[in-house]
Structures are given as C-alpha cells and as structure tokens.
C-alpha cells in the first residue's frame, strides 16, 4: 500500500515536471504571446497556427493555457513557501514563548480559522485600487493567499514544537546553554516532517482558490491568463457550440490538481 502511494508520487512528480517543461517550451517559443490578438480568427478551431484554437479575442488558447498553468503553479508554490515559513515562525515562537504569548498567538490563529478563506480573499481583493495592473493583481492574489493560509499549519507546528521543547535532547541542549538561533537550527530539521506535507498540501489548495476567485471576477486581471479567467469562457454557450477546445483549460486544471494531490498524499 505504502509502496503503491510512493510510486504514484514519483510518477505524478515526473508527469508534472514534463507538463511544466512543455508549458515553458510553448510560452517561450518565438512569436508566441498570450496577449496577441489574431483579429481574423476569433473562436477558431484547431489549426497548424493555433493547435488548440483561439478565444473570443483571437488569442492562442494553447499559449494562454500554458502561461496560466505556469503562473498559477509558480504563484501557488511561492505562496505556499511563504505560508509554510510564516507558520513555522509563528508556531515555533509560540511554543518557546511564555504561556500568555502562546495563548495570544493561538487566539490569532483561531480568528483566522473562524473565517472561510474565500470571504477574506474577496474582502481584500475587492478593496484593491480600480487601476491595479494585471501583474500587480496576480502578486496581490497570491500574497493574500499566503497571508491567509498559515494559521492551520501554525497550529500543527506549535503542537510539534511543543513536543520537541519537552524532549530530552532539547532540555539537555537548553541546559547546556543553547539559545535562539542555535535552537532554531536544531529544531527546524525535526519539524520538517510536519512542514513538508503542509507545503505540498497548500499548493493545490491555492491553485483551486485562485481559480475560484478568478471565476468570480476577483482574480488575476486581463490580459494575464489565469485558470479562473479561462473558466469564465464556459459561461459562453455560443462559444461552447463552436469549439470543444473551450474545455481544454478545465480538463488540464483537473489533471494538474490530481497530480498535485498525488504528490501531496501522505506516504
């Protein structure tokens, strides 16, 4: 059973790496642009020039899907790294602080956990300036995800660090005068079994959150491609009648999320 899960993890990692390489090759190919509009070919089917057809504005769907994939995966990885780092910092500090400070830190975690993500995301995202550039909106979307994702992980890290604080080797180390940075240096490798799965679990969660936010019109701004923005195409029944390539983004998104879930699964 464990062997099967470990094997699926390796296969999923290789498949995802392959998809990333293909997407980079498509985006970096000469003359490919996610924003270039072919005005003569809106809503075109597959052709040699546009292998997955074009959208309503004549933009190459293959290039846009590839760019959305890279943007979303890159953003989710960075946001996940930030959120894991924040959780590690808060959890460790709370575990090694007096009970009052730890209680306060956990109260703050409870406050964040009491709110469904999407509401907070909507609240912050909607209060951005009306003139926000697409690149800035992408940065803000993933930064907000990182800022809201840490409390659940911080609680787990707090419990883990608390256990390590009371361990014999830690008591011995502290009794021998180990302080601050030295403790962290020894503590972090021991917290890795907690932090690594948290990091991996957050990536698909952030990709889904970005897609949901984009589908509500509160995600990454046009002309930057995003999963959410492309899911909006499914609302256009006229477009669905003309080409089946409209389903490419949702199909690919589901495949990528399945691969990410397989990588994040506990072995």
């Amino acid at each position, binding site marked *: 059973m464990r062997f099967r899960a470990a094997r699926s993890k390796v296969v999923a990692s290789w498949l995802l790496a392959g998809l990333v390489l293909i997407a980079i090759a498509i985006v970096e190919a000469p003359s490919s642009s996610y924003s270039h509009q072919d005005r003569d070919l809106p809503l075109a089917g597959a052709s040699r020039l546009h292998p997955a057809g074009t959208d309503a504005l004549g933009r190459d769907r293959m290039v846009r899907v590839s760019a959305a994939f890279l943007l979303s995966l890159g953003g989710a990885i960075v946001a996940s790294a930030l959120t894991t780092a924040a959780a590690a910092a808060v959890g460790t500090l709370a575990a090694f602080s007096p009970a009052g400070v730890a209680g306060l830190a956990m109260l703050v975690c*409870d*406050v964040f956990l009491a*709110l469904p993500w999407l509401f907070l995301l909507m609240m912050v995202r*909607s*209060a951005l300036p009306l*003139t926000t550039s697409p690149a800035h909106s992408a940065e803000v979307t993933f930064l907000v995800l990182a800022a809201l994702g840490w409390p659940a992980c911080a609680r787990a890290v707090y419990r883990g660090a608390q256990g390590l604080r009371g361990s014999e080797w830690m008591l011995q180390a502290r009794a021998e005068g180990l302080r601050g940075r030295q403790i962290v240096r020894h503590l972090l490798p021991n917290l890795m079994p907690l932090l690594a799965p948290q990091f991996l679990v957050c990536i698909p969660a952030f990709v889904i959150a970005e897609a*949901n936010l984009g589908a*509500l019109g509160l995600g990454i701004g046009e002309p930057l491609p995003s999963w959410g923005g492309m899911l909006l195409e499914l609302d256009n029944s006229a477009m669905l009648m003309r080409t089946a390539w409209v389903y490419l983004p949702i199909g690919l*998104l589901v495949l990528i999320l399945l691969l990410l879930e397989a990588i994040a699964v506990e072995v």
Partner: protein
Amino acid sequence: MKFAAGLLKRLGRTLAIVLLVVFGSTVLVRFAPGYLSDAREMDPRYAGAARVELAAEAGRSGSLGQMLATEIGGWTQGNLGISRQYEVPVLELILPRLAVTGSLMLRAIVMAWTLALCASLLSSASRNPSLLWQAPAALLLAVPTAAMATVCLLVDGGGPVLVMTLLLAARDFKFLDRTLRKAWRDEHLLQARAQGVTTLRLVRAHILPNIAPQLLALATLSIVTALSALVPVEVIFSVPGLGQLAWSAAMNRDLPVLLAITMIMAIAVTLAGMASDREDQWRAA
C-alpha cells in the same frame, strides 16, 4: 460547576474571536490600498475638482476609529448598519437571505453526510482502499467549485444542492474512510467479528460511538467547507443567499454588508467548533 466554568470560558473565547474578526476585517479593508478609491473618480464626466472632492470626502470618512464606531453603532442599534450599495439597513438584506442559505446548507450537509457515511462504510469494509470509491472522491476534490457549478448549469443537470453535496461528500468521505478503516482494525472489533457479532451491530454499538468525537470535528469542517463553497455556488446558480450578497458587496465595496456577513460566518464556525471541542464535557454533563 467545572463544566459551567469551562463553558463560560469557551463562550468568552468565542466572543473575543468574533470581536477580533470585526476589528481585523475592518483594519484589513481600511488599509487595503484601494479602499478609498471611488468608482466615480474614473468617470470622465466628473470634472477634476469634483474628483479631488470625492477623494477628500472618502479620506474624511475613512478613519479607522470612525469606521469601527459606525459598525459597532449599527450592531447596537440592531440594524447592523446601513448598506453603502442599497442604502437600507443591512439586517433587512440579510434576514431573508439567511433562510435561503441556511436551507441550502442544511440540505447539502445532510445529503453529503448520508452519502459519505454510506460510501465510507462500504469502502472501509474491504481490506485495501478501492479505486472504485477513491477515484470519484479524488476527482471531485480536484474540480474547483465554480467549474463544477458551471458544468452542472451547462448540462442542465443538478442545482446548487447537488454541487455542494458532491463537494462536501468527497471531503467527508476522505476523512470518514480513513477514520473507519482505523476503527475496523481495533483489536476488540477483530475479536467481536471473530465471535460472529453482526456488522450492523458492530457499527451501531462500537464503531459509531467510538468515532463520535471525530464525527463532531468533521461536522465543523463540513460547515467551513460549505461556507467556502457558498459564494461560487450561489453566484453561478443565481441563488439569492448570503454568498451572492457577499459577492455583490465585495464587487461594490459595501463594507457594512461584508462585515455583517463575515461576523455571521465567524459566529457559525466558532459555535460549531465549540460544540465539537466540548463533546467530552457535554457527555459528562
């Protein structure tokens, strides 16, 4: 006595969380970079002087203290403040929608629990996890709620309850399957099975009481998941509920409405969390 003290402490913590949610949300929105910008400032029909005056007016009414005072004042008056978008008391907007959302969530949660419990009982009976049960759950979890809702709308098959049920059932199944699989491996259950105790009796008398604390924790998780799915589901299916109102308020920067809905969500989640945390004490009482 100990139970009452624990309950009071927990209620105090819930109240503190709700107040911190209000304060935190107000600070978050007030200091978001575009809170003071007004859509009218982008309208070319307004003269430069008018736009400067609009910005100045927003700046004057946007002090944090004043915003908090307005919010708390609205709550103490019992109308939850006045909506910026509709210019009516927020309570008038929320009350009818609360019933719609409550009914949608209740139906989805009950159906999802029934589905997940049946599926996990069947799935956990086999020695190894079967793809027959795991694959649909994994697939459902990999589809964003908005996409699932849009596809349902396109094929004209299923409504908001079905989408929320499928999403919740997939999550609940994942958790329940793992919990039940662990429970089935308990030594006393293996002994009871060897002695010929019927499966139905084992489930009713041994497994369900044993996993009751986990089930309560799952109930809290179900509420949080359902609340998160509310917005895309209600917006895409045009259900006049709280999720749709929150989305409309977010699009129109209607802070009083957003804050009131956020507070209702926080109360629902913390109360549900309180019930699951105190399960042992409820039972002792």
